């Protein structure tokens, strides 16, 4: 059984068709790339899978269970972690608080514990703090744990976001342009980080990326999205040679 299966997913924003019959079959432990020119609907695909928008048509199944129509926090708690293209961090919170916050769905002490500081809450929060510390060390942000995120270098902010996404204990990790705005050195670090996440946690990864070099490095299979439709799917080599992909990226010869 595939881990994440999307079929026939279509979405309209008003009259505008943003995604048309998108399909995806993600096996456990796979790294899949999703490329495409600007405005192709890559981020919309992520938002549809994670429940921020509900698809107009189509099925999204995680481990055989349909997740269409559930609220984003429920979908996330089922095991879909994600990062955002433009770094959605909480600017008044420290790095440690970010990672601890993502354990929200794993807490069981409820309102009584929150209001009265019961022993159960103390025990649970201690466990969360330990797990957060482990994650922060893994992503090399532990030394910033009491810093507000805004004071961190850009690369570290990216890693905080990934540590946060991993704290929800996901089965699938959706990375939305993890290297946007990065220097070439930071990019190399990021490749290492993603490899490590993949190896240590065994999560399946779906990756949006602009830079072909980066995707070619990490993914066995790549999908190309143009105007909301998958126009090509295959290994990096096949994608590189595919005339439709070349056309989408560089334009047709006659027009260019």
């Amino acid at each position: 059984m595939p881990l994440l299966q999307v079929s026939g997913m279509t979405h309209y924003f008003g009259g505008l068709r943003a995604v048309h019959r998108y399909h995806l079959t993600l096996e456990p432990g796979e790294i899949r790339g999703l490329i495409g020119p600007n405005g192709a609907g890559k981020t919309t695909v992520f938002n549809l899978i994670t429940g921020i928008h509900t698809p107009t048509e189509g099925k999204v199944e995680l481990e055989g269970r349909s997740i269409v129509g559930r609220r984003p926090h429920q979908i996330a708690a089922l095991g879909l972690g994600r990062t955002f293209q433009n770094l959605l961090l909480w600017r008044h919170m420290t790095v440690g608080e970010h990672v601890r916050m993502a354990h929200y769905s794993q807490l069981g002490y409820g309102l009584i514990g929150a209001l009265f500081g019961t022993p159960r809450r103390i025990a649970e929060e201690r466990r969360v703090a330990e797990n957060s510390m482990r994650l922060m060390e893994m992503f090399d942000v532990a030394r910033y744990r009491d810093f507000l995120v805004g004071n961190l270098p850009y690369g570290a902010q990216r890693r905080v976001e990934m540590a946060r996404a991993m704290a929800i204990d996901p089965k699938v990790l959706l990375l939305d342009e993890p290297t946007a705005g990065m220097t070439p050195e930071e990019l190399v670090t990021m490749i290492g980080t993603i490899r490590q996440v993949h190896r240590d946690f065994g999560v399946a990864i779906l990756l949006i990326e602009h830079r072909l070099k980066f995707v070619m490095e990490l993914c066995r299979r790549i999908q190309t999205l143009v105007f909301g439709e998958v126009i090509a799917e295959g290994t990096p080599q096949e994608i590189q040679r595919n005339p439709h992909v070349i056309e989408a990226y560089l334009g047709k010869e006659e027009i260019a």
Partner: protein
Amino acid sequence: MRHDDQPPTDSKTPMVEFAVRAQTPPSAMQRIRSSFSVIPMLGWLTGILCAVFIERFFGDELAYRLYLPKLPVLFGCLIMFKTPVLIPSALAYVILVYVIPVTATARLTAGLTNRLAAILDRGPIAASCLIHLGLLYLALHYWTDLSDYRLLVLKLTMIAVMLTLSLNLINGYMGEFSCSHPGFMALGAYSASTVTLLLFSNDRLFGAAVLPAAWGSYCFPLALIFGGISAAAGALLVAIPSFRTRGDYLAIISLAFMFIVKSLIENLEWLGGPRGMSGQPDWSSLPVVYAWMVACIWVVNNFVRSIYGKALNALRDNEMAAEAMTVNTRKTKITAFMLGAFWAGVAGGLFAHVMRFVNPGTFGIQRLAEVLAMVYFGGLNSVVGSIFGAVSINLISEMLRPLEIYKWIVIPVILILVMIYRPTGLLAFREFDVKAILRPKHSGTGQGA
């Protein structure tokens, strides 16, 4: 894992900046500050107790010697504004009775109190808290014992602390803008009053008492909780439509709610209509109000420091990210909103039993402005800020009472200045870490454990 990025450059972080500044030779001001920085909270409380007892035993005598007409009630401010000639005497009184005893006792006993604080620090935090709170209560009890006016001001201040803190939960921690606090307060005040008047009091609205008055003081907490719950129920009515989307909806709906509650009460004859309700039993004594205020601070502080409470900050800073990180934002918002309303309701119930009279006019736009001022003056997203804001705005407003109408120029000017120089308030975004506050303080050489 490799890491190419540098740690944040030092000049940007406030922590390091402070350390750099400390290396320059200390000025007189800094030396005074560092000499007081070794005083633990226990030391300050001892100093305050000492000052209170000095006033109790020598206050009248001293006031007479300084040609003051009577004991200065609120740090001599009322006297200073009424008869400017007496400003030096009033200042002398304040310095002799408050400033010198507090600082001297606190500083001189710092060694002893530090050692005591260290002992308490090793024990359970609850015991340490109770001892500190007990000392504070003693000081307040004897301070207010000298004047009924002081007692009233202090009770109202404590109620204002509860209101401010509960509104800060919504406007600060959650980052929404709610205007319905006077409405929640009214719901609490009227619900609690209805219970106490109906059951324990012979009054014109509900007739003779049903239960013996001796039960009253035991049932009063229940009446207050009932007031709180009815306010929370009102909050649910506001929350359901307004938390569907983000934006200004809550501000508009909650403002409407405040006016609806006010005009509803005005038009219900069985609640006394515009003339209000009077004759509530005098159960909001100082210990009762103090205990409820402490409970409110404790509960709200517990909440905002838990992960469930921190979720408020997350959804304020970015709701989409909070949802993606498994936070149930709608539930979190409604819970916090109802919690804030609950405490506003309890505060309203206490208020009704302090004033022993409520009318709908009390819970209008002016009360809203006061509470908002306290929240934004003290500081958003901060328990200490709320306490500070409520106490200072309330005291300032009482102290400036002799200025009459000009008071309403001075207070807004102060607020405008705060908004210009500290837009989020004076003590915004602080953690209220009780353990750190009560901890023994050590100087460089250090004394105590």
